[in-house]
């Protein structure tokens, strides 16, 4: 049954002109798509960086790239993929889907949402502008001191890096707060906390992880900026400092960060497995608990990145034990998904194919992963190509495959058309084969003694052929990814039109038009189960059985209670506003001033930012009217 749009509501919730829309929209769906498109562009850039690295490594002592360029490229490849692709892409999915899955009309803080996107974009451009002066960050994506201190990295490369990441962190925290508050307080009536979709659980837990994980990174970066630019001394042992302080701070962030990337992807997997197995997922409570437990343990294992720095055997033993525990929730999840597929009536359409690929690749990565807690084993393979293989298996397998599953699954909802199946088949298989061809051999060459982060290697060590295979694989992979772009362009124009719910899925986003109207739901539905579109009691499309107490014509949405989602109050959603963009632009000034050591620019930027924030928080005409009434 197709949902019918209400034109008056569309006008009230939509923006008037496309320029205004581009600059001032606060609609979570537009912002979500922007995140996804921009993150995808960073993915392509990071991928090109990787291809260049692979060309250089295809033969021993190659002179294709100078060591300086290589070192910039490998640093930016890692930094881009982790900070500017993976998390923003998953936040993009979250942005688009969360209010729809919750049965709400937007996120709790729409302007903060818009602001977050601009900050993400500008911080990425800030960091990439370093290439224009040939001084891209070159300290590796975890930038260990003392190499990255001023003495050993005298150029501006690491200033772009440290300041760029502090800049980005503003978007991360804002985005996390937005997800937490929206998920906790804006669910449709009856969507108690144990009826939320598993994707929502994953995002909620991830958002908390972001809030706890980013500050140590920010502190590390503040210390680095103060040391490099203002003569402070945190990491230099001759002044009483300690280079390991950096490593601790970084990995207290860094380990949870990989789960910040993995968990939302896992949320996508749960949704796709459920829909395409045609049954409610096996072990909802187990899967939700697994996600919570994973994140908690994730904060207690960081020293396993430091097994080789010279820690005591006792510390090593403790962190070994803690690190294996994290394999347990992952094991539960894998078997729960397999059980769902095996007890359902699965259709291996493209979204589920990508999930199958995810299971294959991620399990390999996870299996190599649970070897690392064995500290003595780790001390052989860390910093070698074995670990490079491991983390690409878990990150590409654990995040990129689910992201593609998500693309094929939700593209119809976002755009209103299906992605092409034939191109999709080739996209999947070439990516799958190319990925394995590239990265599986790296396990072997690592075991043969090849360290990581080397711009070249000696011939005759037995590493040559394996590296060549990886390089060939990387081009197969590149073609696979290219096919997705082809599919995208083709399907945007000629894709088969999709109805509201082409997959016969269970969650609320499928109870809207494809693409959804700006206001999402004309009536906020009342929910009676975890699978509202599959149960007999929830009727999200039927206005008469959903007594929505909000007035969408007044731009209202509903705020509900924390656990049981009982209606509590009405929230007035802000109209489009230029303030988020203005603030983000002013912040560029703040960070640029610090970069080039022109502190009055930073000072002015800070002062103007404060004024803009004051302007932002000033009650809108609507809020004032509502308060007066």
């Amino acid at each position, binding site marked *: 049954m197709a949902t019918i749009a209400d034109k008056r509501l569309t006008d009230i919730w939509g923006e008037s002109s496309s320029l205004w829309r581009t600059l001032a929209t606060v609609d979570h769906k537009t912002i979500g798509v922007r995140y996804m498109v921009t993150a995808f562009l960073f993915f392509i850039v990071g991928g090109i960086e990787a291809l260049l690295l692979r060309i250089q490594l295809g033969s021993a002592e190659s002179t294709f790239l100078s060591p300086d360029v290589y070192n910039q490229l490998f640093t930016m490849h890692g930094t881009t993929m982790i900070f500017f692709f993976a998390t923003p892409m998953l936040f993009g999915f979250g942005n688009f889907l969360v209010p729809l899955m919750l049965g709400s009309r937007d996120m*709790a*803080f729409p302007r*903060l949402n818009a602001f977050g996107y601009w900050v993400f974009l500008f911080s990425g451009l800030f960091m990439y502008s370093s290439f224009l002066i040939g001084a891209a960050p070159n300290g590796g994506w975890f930038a260990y001191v003392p190499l990255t201190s001023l003495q050993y990295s005298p150029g501006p490369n690491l200033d772009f890096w440290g300041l760029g990441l502090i800049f980005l962190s503003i978007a991360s*925290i804002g985005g*996390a*707060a*937005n997800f*937490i*508050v929206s998920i*906790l*307080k*804006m669910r449709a*009536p*009856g969507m108690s906390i144990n009826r939320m979709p598993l994707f929502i659980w994953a995002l909620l837990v991830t958002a908390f992880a972001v*809030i*706890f994980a*980013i*500050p*140590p990174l*920010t*502190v590390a970066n*503040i*210390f680095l900026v*103060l*040391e490099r630019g*203002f*003569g*402070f*001394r*945190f990491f*230099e042992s001759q*002044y*009483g*400092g*300690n280079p390991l*302080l950096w490593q*601790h*701070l970084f990995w*207290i962030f860094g380990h949870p960060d990989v789960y910040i990337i993995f968990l939302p992807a896992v949320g996508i997997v749960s949704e796709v497995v459920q829909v395409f197995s045609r049954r409610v997922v096996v072990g909802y409570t187990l899967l939700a608990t697994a996600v919570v437990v994973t994140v908690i343990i994730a904060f207690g294992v960081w020293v396993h990145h430091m097994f080789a720095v010279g820690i005591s055997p006792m510390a090593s033993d403790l962190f070994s034990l803690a690190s294996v525990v994290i394999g347990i929730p992952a094991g539960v999840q894998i078997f729960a998904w397999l059980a769902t597929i095996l007890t359902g009536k699965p259709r291996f359409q493209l979204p589920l194919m990508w999930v199958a690929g995810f299971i294959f690749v991620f399990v390999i990565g996870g299996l190599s992963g649970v070897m690392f807690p064995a500290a003595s084993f780790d001390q052989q393979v860390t910093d070698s190509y074995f670990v490079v293989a491991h983390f690409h298996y878990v990150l590409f397998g654990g995040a990129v495959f689910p992201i593609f599953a998500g693309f094929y699954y939700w593209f119809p909802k976002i755009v209103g058309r299906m992605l092409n199946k034939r191109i999709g088949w080739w996209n999947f298989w070439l990516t799958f084969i190319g990925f394995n061809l590239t990265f599986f051999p790296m396990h072997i060459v690592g075991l043969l003694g090849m360290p990581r982060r080397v711009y070249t290697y000696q011939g005759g060590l037995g590493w040559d052929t394996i590296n060549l295979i990886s390089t060939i694989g990387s081009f197969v992979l590149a073609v696979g990814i290219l096919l997705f772009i082809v599919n995208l362009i083709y399907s945007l124009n000629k894709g088969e039109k999709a109805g509201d719910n082409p997959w016969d899925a269970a969650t609320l986003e499928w109870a809207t038009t494809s693409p959804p109207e700006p206001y999402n739901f004309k009536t906020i539905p*009342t929910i009676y189960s975890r699978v509202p579109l599959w149960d007999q009691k929830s009727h999200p499309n039927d206005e008469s059985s959903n*007594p*929505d*107490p*909000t*007035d969408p014509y007044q731009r209202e949405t*509903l*705020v509900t209670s*924390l656990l*049981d*989602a*009982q*209606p*509590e*109050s*009405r*929230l*007035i959603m802000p109209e489009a506003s230029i303030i988020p963009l203005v603030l983000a632009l002013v912040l560029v000034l703040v960070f640029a001033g610090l970069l080039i050591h022109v502190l009055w620019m930073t000072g002015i930027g800070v002062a103007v930012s404060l004024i803009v924030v004051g302007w932002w*928080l000033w009650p809108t005409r609507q809020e004032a009217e*509502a*308060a007066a009434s």
Partner: protein
Amino acid sequence: MTVIPARSELPTQVSGSRSVGWWGLICLLLNEVVLFASLIASYLYIRFNSTAWPPLGVPKPELILPAIMTVILLSSSVFMHLAQRGIQRGDQSRLRIGLLIAFGLAVIFLALQVYEYMHSDVLPKDNTYGSLFFAITGIHGIHVLLAVLMNGYLQLRARLGHFSARRLQGVENVVLYWHFVDAVWILIVLSLYVSPYF
């Protein structure tokens, strides 16, 4: 059983944990808590990996000035609390006077911090002890400054009659932030000023 009330029964002006703004602030405060925890953890990590603390040649931090600063900051919290209680009862003048006094006290705190910096025995570039001291108290000082600016903003809005017994989210949020900044100060005093004596 989900009960759906009528629209007229659902308010738009809410406070405390019923307000999304409050929840947003809690998320921000959680972030700041972890930020200060990371700073203090860094301090303790360096300390317990050092043989002498403060390092040789650096005197232990003097306690009189921070004691005065603590009294001033905590009093300012009391006045912020009184201001909030005032507006909860609709008392506009109590709100504005409370805000004003807290504002003044916080400014004095900042002035004393500047005085302390100018007379410090150790500078950031001398050693890690100095760097950590200035970084941690400096970042806290910036938080106090932000609190002062927020207070000024509230005073402006109070003057325009934006607040009432029913409409006081802004006041609540700033007061909560203010108390948080104070709590962090106590942690800083204990870690940076008092603990070197033990």
